[in-house]
C-alpha cells in the first residue's frame, strides 16, 4: 500500500486551472521531491496533500484513506514552511511542543518528545530562546523539530531552505537527508532548486505548468530526460538544445544543424530508430559531452567562444555553433586563455539526446 496516492488531482481557482489532473503514488519511507519553476503547481500540490488547499478534482489518499474532506489536523501530516512559521512569542521548547500541546498530550510525554527532538537537531542549548534570537538555520531546525515530535505518517516540506544562504543551505540539505534516514518517514519535499532535488530525492517529480513532466530517480531524469523541459531543467548548466534536421545517409541518421555551414552530428542508434528523414529535431548536448581535446576522428563541430567563465577546477565556455548559443564545460588547462581560442569542439555523440522539435519529446523509447 502506498503512503500517499494522488489520483487525477486538479486545482482550480475560479475559472483558472493551475494543476491539471496529476497522478503520483508515493511509497512508504520514500523521499519524493517535487521540483519545477515557480508557478508550476508544486506548492499547490503539496498544500492539497496537507489540506491547506481544497482539492477541485480527483482524490488524495494518505495511508489508504481518502482525505479530500479530512481536516489538516486529522491527516497525520506535519509540514515545514519556507518562512519557518515559528510563533514569535513562544520559546524554542514551546514552539516544538505546540503540536502536542494543542492535542492536550500529557506534560511528561511532551517534555520527553521535546528533549528528544532538541537532541536530534542540536537545539538543546537553545530551548529557552525566542525565535528572534536564533539564526536562520536554527529557526529552520526548530521548524523541523515541531514536525518530528508529532511523529506523523508523512512529512511535507515547502521550500524549507529557500530563505537560507548558499552555504547553510548545503549544510541543512545534508541534515535533512540524515534526518530522513533516521526517521524513515515518508517525505514530500517541494523546491525550485534542481540541485536540492537531485541530492535529496529517492524520486524526483518534475512539474511544469500544472503537469508532471517526468518522474524518476535523480540519475534517471538526468540521463534519460523525457522531454526538452526536463533536459533543460535538470543539470547545471542545463543541456544545450540545438535546432537540427534529421538526414538519412547510407542508412545512418545524422542531425544537420540548422545554419549556413550544414554541420552534422551522428544520431545515436537508440534515437535514430524513431527518427524520420527530414524530421525537425533538437539535439540535446550536455555541457560535459562537449570535449575540448577530442581525437581527430571523433565527431566535432566548428564554433566560436565568446566568453570563458573560470570556476576553478573547470571553466564554462559560452559560445556559438552557427547561430546557436551553447555552454560547454571544460577542465581548466594550464592557461585558461587558450580556451577562448578554441574553434572546434569534439562532441561525444553517444551521450547526445534527440528530441522532436514540435512535441519536445525524446525520440528514444523509454522503458
Amino acid at each position: 500500500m502506498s503512503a500517499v496516492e494522488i489520483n487525477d488531482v486538479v486545482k482550480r481557482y475560479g475559472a483558472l486551472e493551475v494543476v491539471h489532473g496529476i497522478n503520483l503514488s508515493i511509497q512508504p519511507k520514500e523521499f519524493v521531491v517535487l521540483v519545477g519553476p515557480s508557478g508550476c503547481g508544486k506548492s499547490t500540490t503539496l498544500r492539497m496533500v496537507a489540506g491547506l488547499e481544497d482539492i477541485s478534482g480527483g482524490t488524495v489518499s494518505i495511508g489508504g484513506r481518502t482525505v479530500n474532506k479530512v481536516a489538516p489536523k486529522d491527516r497525520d501530516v506535519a509540514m515545514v514552511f519556507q518562512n519557518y512559521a515559528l510563533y514569535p512569542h513562544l520559546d524554542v521548547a514551546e514552539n516544538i511542543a505546540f503540536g502536542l500541546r494543542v492535542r492536550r498530550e500529557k506534560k511528561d510525554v511532551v517534555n520527553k518528545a521535546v528533549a528528544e527532538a532538541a537532541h536530534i537537531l542540536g537545539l538543546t542549548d537553545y530551548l529557552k530562546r525566542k525565535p528572534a534570537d536564533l539564526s536562520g538555520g536554527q529557526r529552520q531546525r526548530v521548524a523541523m523539530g515541531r514536525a518530528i515530535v508529532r511523529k506523523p505518517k508523512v512529512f511535507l516540506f515547502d521550500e524549507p531552505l529557500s530563505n537560507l544562504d548558499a552555504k547553510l543551505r548545503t549544510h541543512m540539505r545534508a541534515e535533512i537527508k540524515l534526518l530522513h534516514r533516521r526517521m524513515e518517514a515518508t517525505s514530500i519535499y517541494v523546491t525550485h532548486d534542481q540541485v536540492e532535488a537531485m541530492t535529496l530525492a529517492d524520486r524526483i517529480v518534475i512539474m511544469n505548468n500544472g503537469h508532471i513532466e517526468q518522474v524518476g530517480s535523480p540519475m534517471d531524469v538526468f540521463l534519460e530526460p523525457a522531454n526538452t523541459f526536463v533536459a533543460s531543467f535538470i543539470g547545471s548548466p542545463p543541456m544545450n538544445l540545438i535546432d537540427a534536421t534529421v538526414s538519412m545517409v547510407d542508412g545512418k541518421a545524422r542531425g544537420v544543424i540548422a545554419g549556413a555551414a550544414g554541420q552534422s552530428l551522428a544520431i545515436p542508434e537508440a534515437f535514430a530508430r524513431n527518427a524520420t528523414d527530414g524530421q525537425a529535431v533538437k539535439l540535446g548536448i550536455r555541457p560535459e559531452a562537449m570535449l575540448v581535446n577530442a581525437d581527430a576522428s571523433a565527431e566535432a563541430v566548428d564554433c566560436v567562444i565568446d566568453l570563458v567563465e573560470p570556476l576553478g577546477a573547470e571553466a564554462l565556455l559560452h559560445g556559438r555553433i552557427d547561430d546557436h548559443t551553447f555552454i560547454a564545460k571544460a577542465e581548466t588547462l594550464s592557461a585558461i586563455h587558450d580556451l577562448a581560442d578554441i574553434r572546434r569542439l569534439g562532441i561525444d555523440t553517444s551521450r547526445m539526446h534527440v528530441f522532436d522539435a514540435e512535441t519536445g519529446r525524446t525520440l528514444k523509447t523509454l522503458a
Partner: protein
Amino acid sequence: MDNRIREYLRTLGEDLRRDWQLYLLLAPMVLWFAVFLYKPMDGLQIAFKDFSIFRGVAASPWVGFAHFQELFNNGLFIRAFFNTIIISSIGLIFAFPVPIILALMFNEVQSAVARRWAQTVVYLPHFISVVIVAGIVINFLSPSTGVINILLKWVGLEPIYFLTQPEWFRTIFIGSSVWKEAGFESIVYLAAIAGVSPTLYESARVDGASRFQMMWRITLPCILPTIIIMLIIRIGNLVEVGFEYIILLYQPSTYETADVVSTFIYRTGLQGTQYDLATAAGLFNAVIAFVLVYSANRISRKLSSTSLW
C-alpha cells in the same frame, strides 16, 4: 562643552541642508505644537498667581500653592477627582477589552461580505456627533417614551428615571461610550491581526489547533504589543474623561457620580470665572496623567519589553 555644542549645531545644520524636504514636512506639526501646546503653557503660571483679567498674567501677584490648598480643601474638587478615576477605571476594565474582543470576532467571520457589513455597522456610531449620541441616549432612556422604560412597563416594572439617578450614570456613560467608540477602536486591533503571518495559522492547522486555540495561542499573543501600547495610552487618559459628553448627559441631581475634573474646571473656570483655580486643577490633572503614563510605560517595558518610548 562649548565644542560639543558647536559640533552639535554643525551636524544639525548639515542635516537640515541635506534633508530639508523632510524637515519641511515636519514643520506644520512643530508649528502646531508650538502655537497650541507650548505657547499656552506660559499661561500655566496663573495657577500660582492671584489672577485678574484686568491686571493681566504678568502683573498679577504670586500666591504660591494657595490655589492648590484651596482645591484640596474643596470637597467638590475631591469628589470630581475621584469620580474621574472611578469612571475611567470602570471604563478601563469593561470598555478596554471590548474592541479587542470585537476585532477577534470580526477575524473569525468567514464570509467577507458579512464581515464588511458587521464592521460598517459597528464603525458607524463613531461618526455621529456626541451631541446627537447624547440626544439618542436621552430619548432611549426617557421615562415616558424611551424604549427601555416601555419594555420595563411591559414586564410589569416601574419606569426608572435613569438620567436623574446618580447610581445609573456611570453605567449609562460607559455603556453608550462603548457603543459609540468600540467598533472604531477595533480597527487598530484588526490592523494588528492583519499583520500576523498567515503561515502561522496554516502551520497551526496542520499541527492540529482548533479555531479557538489559534485565537488564544496565536492571534492574541501576536497582537499583545499593540494591546499594551493602547493600554498605556489609556492609562495616561485615566484622569481625562471626555467632558462634552458628560456635560451633555449630567444634571445637578447626578453630579454626585457624574461631575469630573474637566466639568469641574469648566464650571469654576468659565462659568465662575475663577481662572487661576481652574488652571491649578488642570495642572494637577496633567501632573497625575504624566506620572501614570510614565509608570505604566516603565512597568510595561520591564514586564513585556513593549513600550511607547
